[in-house]
């Protein structure tokens, strides 16, 4: 298979409630895919399933031809399956530079070294500088994250993810909560993502989705109801129902 | 090397000078005890004993004024004990150390004594082995083996052939268990079962169930004084063991006078052996109880540690008398070897070889006194008891 990344029949239920039902999709290298759906459709659950934060009830996750379903979240990251978080999860007392440096050291397998200085590795320092610079974060690189703007924090989430040199990147609403004045910065960052990287983006902002994605998947009530070109999505009756119809109704299908 | 020796010499010289200059000045006595925390009551009794002695015998010896310095050691903590002793000796320049409630605390002080040129008079800590750790230790309290020993014969004579022992699982408890077993088996009885229960036991009914199941007709027990004794005695009554006629024996820690109001009727009839009862009938004791009650502030708080402290002060006064204010630990200790006097508890003597106190052990029974309050009523005297845990050479 030439697919870089594949999800097969991924299902998850809590108790009797199915939150993900037989989701299958695949992505090739360099692909830009958007995953959209109404609130409660199970998008974040899907990301959690794929990245191993929660265990699926059934189904497989395949990366580079290797079944990673049995692996924990950490091992999947090390294989190149990386995510960002919908609500930023950053260390408010640390600086962006420290975040990225720590991530780089981890990638190099040097993060749990005791007998070395955190800033002692010049190759890492240079790379951190480059990553932060590419995302326009060099000016705030040494300020505590708790003191920088939210948009910058979102960029830092992406910077951390990129520092891991991922093969597949899952962006969980990268522009959520960012003031509209700052969204162009995020968008710019998204455009500059490495071309070979497969990116799956969850997003509510349809303008962003249309500009970014070449393919769109719509999730409703834990199920894929549409897969196709961005231009077709608005016309699809199922999608219209899921968004515009009584969505409580759509949920009770379960 | 020589420089080191010279410094050492200078230090010794300085020490000698400081002890010379202490002559005819106030003589300080450092008392270490549990004055706060869970054993605060015992510490208060130390203080009451000391103050009673000084009230009755004056605050000076041969013209030397005596000043007592108290230091609080709330629970067994050898490191703190050593630090306090060191401070008392080095900083406060005390010539005599006294007090000490727990064995490990005493063990931490004894290695210092020779260098400090200071005797330690133990008011309580009741393990035999302490006396071996330094020739400068004198003890005026008791050992658990000493107070327990007579019970073996008493129990057997009262018709108990099979007994069970139940003790708290710590040093003194184990000492008591061994002492009773030895004495009881020597008398011809048989200890069928020995139970050691954790120190923090609060509910004793399951233990009583074990006692009942064992079929023994006598129960020997040892618990540290304080809250557990209350639960133990109540459980003994409530589970019907008392009614079943099982005989109860314990050293007097269990029915210490300050616990009697709380134990109340539950304790009535319990037989314990000990070296001192507050109710002991003698003119010396009457005077002591009066003074000590005044010092402690309430008659119902007074119990055995006070008499250990009172006699401890007597020993220290005798030491001061013998050394005439000069700091000479060896001479001081030698002066009280073989010393005998009449204590509030009865006739006592410091053995020359063990430096431990030889005294009467009394069999007592909890009964209502003349004023309606419960007391330990002495019913039998075992005169001149040495510490059986101590091999006399």
């Amino acid at each position, binding site marked *: 298979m030439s697919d870089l990344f594949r999800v097969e029949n991924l299902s998850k239920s809590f108790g009797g409630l199915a939150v993900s039902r037989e989701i299958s999709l695949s992505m090739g290298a360099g692909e830009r895919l958007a995953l959209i759906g109404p609130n409660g459709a199970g998008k974040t659950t899907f990301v959690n399933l794929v990245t191993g934060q929660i265990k699926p009830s059934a189904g497989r996750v395949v990366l580079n031809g290797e079944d990673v379903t049995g692996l924990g979240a950490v091992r999947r990251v090390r294989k190149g399956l990386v995510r960002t978080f919908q609500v930023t999860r950053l260390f408010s007392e640390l600086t962006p530079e420290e975040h990225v440096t720590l991530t780089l050291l981890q990638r190099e397998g040097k993060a749990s070294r005791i007998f070395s200085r955190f800033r002692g590795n010049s190759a890492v320092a240079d790379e951190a500088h480059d990553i932060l610079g590419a995302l326009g974060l060099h000016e705030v690189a040494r300020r505590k994250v708790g003191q920088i703007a939210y948009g910058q924090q979102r960029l830092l989430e992406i910077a951390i993810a990129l520092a891991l040199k991922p093969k597949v990147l899952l962006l969980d609403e990268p522009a959520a909560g960012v003031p509209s004045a700052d969204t162009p910065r995020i968008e710019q960052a998204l455009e500059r993502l490495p071309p070979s990287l497969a990116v799956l983006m969850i997003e509510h902002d349809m303008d962003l989705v249309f500009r970014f994605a070449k393919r769109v998947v719509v999730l409703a009530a834990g199920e894929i109801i549409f897969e196709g070109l961005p231009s077709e999505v608005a016309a699809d009756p199922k999608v219209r129902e899921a968004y515009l119809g009584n969505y409580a109704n759509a949920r009770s299908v379960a | 090397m020589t420089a080191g020796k010279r410094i050492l010499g200078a230090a010794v010289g300085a020490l000698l000078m400081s002890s010379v200059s202490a002559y005819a000045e106030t003589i300080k006595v450092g008392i270490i005890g549990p004055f706060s925390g869970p054993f605060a009551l015992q510490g*208060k009794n130390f203080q009451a004993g000391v103050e009673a002695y000084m009230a009755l015998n004056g605050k000076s010896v041969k013209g030397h004024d005596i000043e007592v310095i108290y230091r609080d050691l709330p629970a067994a903590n050898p490191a703190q004990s050593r630090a306090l002793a060191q401070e008392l000796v080095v900083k406060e320049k005390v010539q005599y150390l006294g007090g000490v409630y727990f064995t490990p605390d005493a063990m931490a002080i004894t290695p210092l004594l020779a260098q400090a040129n200071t005797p330690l008079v133990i008011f309580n800590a009741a393990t035999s082995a302490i006396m071996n750790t330094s020739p400068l230790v004198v003890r005026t309290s008791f050992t658990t083996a000493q107070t327990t020993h007579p019970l073996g014969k008493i129990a057997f004579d009262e018709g108990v052939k099979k007994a069970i022992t139940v003790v708290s699982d710590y040093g003194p408890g184990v000492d008591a268990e061994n002492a009773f077993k030895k004495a009881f088996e020597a008398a011809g009885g048989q200890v069928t079962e020995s139970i050691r229960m954790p120190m923090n036991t609060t509910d004793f009914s399951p*233990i009583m169930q*074990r006692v009942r199941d064992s079929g023994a007709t006598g129960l020997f027990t040892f618990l540290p004084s304080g809250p557990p004794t209350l639960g133990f005695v109540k459980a003994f009554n*409530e589970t019907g063991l008392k009614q079943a006629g099982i005989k109860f024996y314990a050293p007097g820690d269990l029915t210490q006078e300050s616990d009697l109001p709380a134990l109340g009727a539950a304790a009535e009839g319990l037989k314990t052996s000990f070296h001192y009862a507050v109710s002991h009938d003698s003119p010396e004791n009457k005077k002591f109880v009066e003074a000590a009650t005044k010092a402690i502030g309430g008659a119902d708080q007074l119990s055995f540690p006070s008499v250990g402290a009172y006699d401890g002060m007597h020993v220290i006064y005798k030491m001061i008398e013998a050394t005439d204010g000069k700091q000479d630990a060896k001479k001081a200790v030698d002066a009280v070897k073989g010393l005998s006097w009449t204590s509030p508890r009865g006739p006592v003597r410091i053995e020359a070889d063990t430096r431990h106190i030889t005294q009467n052990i009394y069999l007592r029974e909890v009964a209502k006194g003349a004023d309606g309050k419960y007391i330990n009523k002495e019913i039998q005297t075992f005169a001149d008891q040495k510490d059986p845990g101590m091999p006399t050479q």
Partner: protein
Amino acid sequence: MQTILSIAIDALAFGMVLFIICIGLSLTMGLMRVVNLAHGAFAMIAGYIASYAARDLGLGYAVAIFLAIIGTIIISIPLERFLYRRIYGSPELTQVLMTIGITFCVIGITNYFFGPTLKTIPLPQALSQPVDVGFRTIAAHRLFVIACGAVVAGGLWYLIERTSFGIKLRATVDNAAMSDALGVRTQVVYAISFAIAIGLAALGGVVGAEFLPIEPYYALRYMVTFLVVVSVGGAGSIPGAVIACLLLGFIDTTGRYLMPEFGNFFFYAAVILIVCLFPRGFLGRAQ
């Protein structure tokens, strides 16, 4: 069989004492998110009040219990107002520091005023005699404690599940900001919950005095036990606390019967096992 029954009833009584004292702590920790290490201090204060009322003033047992509960709550009001309110929402360790400080103060003050001796609360005749329950005799007081525990458990369950106050309380716990917006006066809810928790500690301190005698060091001596019981049950859960108290009471009692010399090993090994199996306690709420 007789032995088993006998052990079981002892375990039940001991477990119920733990329950009455600990459930208040469980409420403060689970519902108000305050690690109140001074909980035992309040139980002790109640014990002193009851002892004073019953022994020195000669009042009846029921009156003494009532006075103790009311008195302890009254004492707790200024403490809540001036000290506890500062630590609502603080990090747990700050709460630990504050409440240990309060405990030290309470110990020091009681020691100063009441002295270090044991205080008893005289039982009425009816409760102090042994009762024959067929297979053995048991102190009537133990049966009384078991009954008290059952009443407390039932009453709390009713209060929390079936009354409007219970609804407000649960709502406040789930989401204080939301409840505030919905018109629930959360400060009042907190104050009442705190009072209830203290009242329960007081009740437990008094009726449990036969097991855990009243003395100044009470507040620290049993702190660990209380903390362990609450955590094993899951903070904030009434049924969890009941299960934990009965189970730990049972383990403790049987352990001490079967092999007293290893009673503590038994107890704490069981605690480790339970905590590893149920990391949130038996019925704790998910964080």
